[in-house]
């Protein structure tokens, strides 16, 4: 029943019940009304799509990334468990080189992989820089800067709580057989995204002049945008050997 009346209206033929009126003017107004309602619907649609985009970027990407990171993290741990006698030096950089534990960020462990491209970071991991300044991995034992980046929001949001890090907070990097315990000593809450000096082996902006074993975390700021970069620096305090039960260092207990 509803069908016929609808179609009648659409064809511009008023049903007999309606009062007859000058047809052309009715039709013109009708056309305007249609255009306006079409425009309104488009605007509503645009609003809904933008809302969905927020849902996508702040919620759905986290789910996908966490799933991916868990899978890759499990793989790394399996490798470690299985590869006890596979000989040293076989550093598997494809699945990740270790895990970052930052108690102040309350986000558990973060897998660390090579590279900071979007496709890597979108898997919910932290990436160490290969460009523009190559990171010095702590496993090499050399002086240098272990520079890392991860997402602030979406895609796992692994560095979401970076602003909760204060001087003296521990940052622990776990590899197959060592715990590297860093202590935060400087933060830079806002800097230009072109400021690559923060990644140098001796980051002057952190207030250090001598070469040492540094770690640098970078992410975007303010939250939900990426106008600037947030930087946290730490220095290696000690290295612990991993025992048979992988007992974490006291900072993580």
């Amino acid at each position, binding site marked *: 029943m509803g069908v016929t009346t609808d179609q009648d209206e659409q064809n511009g033929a008023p049903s007999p019940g309606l009062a007859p009126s000058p047809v052309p003017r009715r039709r013109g107004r009708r056309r305007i009304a249609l255009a306006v309602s079409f425009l309104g619907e*488009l605007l509503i649609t645009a609003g809904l799509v933008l809302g969905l985009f927020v849902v996508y970027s702040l919620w759905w990407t986290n789910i996908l990334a966490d799933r991916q990171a868990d899978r890759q993290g499990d793989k790394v741990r399996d490798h470690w468990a299985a590869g006890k006698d596979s000989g040293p030096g076989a550093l598997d950089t494809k699945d990740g080189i270790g895990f970052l534990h930052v108690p102040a960020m309350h986000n558990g462990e973060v897998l660390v992989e090579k590279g900071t491209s979007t496709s890597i*970071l979108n898997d919910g991991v932290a990436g160490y820089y290969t460009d523009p300044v190559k990171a010095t991995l702590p496993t090499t034992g050399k002086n240098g800067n272990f520079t890392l980046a991860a*997402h*602030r929001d979406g895609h796992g949001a692994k560095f979401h709580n970076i602003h909760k890090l204060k001087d003296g907070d521990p940052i622990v990097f776990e590899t197959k057989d060592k715990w590297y315990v860093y202590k935060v000593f400087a933060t830079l809450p806002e800097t230009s995204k072109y400021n690559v000096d923060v990644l140098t082996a001796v980051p002057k902006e952190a207030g250090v002049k001598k070469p040492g074993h540094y770690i640098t975390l970078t992410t975007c700021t303010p939250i939900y945008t990426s106008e600037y970069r947030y930087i946290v620096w730490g220095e290696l305090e000690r290295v612990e050997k991993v025992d048979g039960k992988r007992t974490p260092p006291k900072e993580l207990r």
Partner: protein
Amino acid sequence: MYGWIWRHLPGNAWVRALLSAVLVLAVVYVLFQYVFPWAEPLLPFNDVTVDNQ
């Protein structure tokens, strides 16, 4: 637009409501699976690295 779609769906009101829901889900799927992943890197909300470009 939505009225037009509604009028062109077959069946009675319940069938149409069901079909509409399916259409909405299909659109959301396409957005989440293809459109948003494509659009996200083009928008300046989630760049986390420092670089010199």
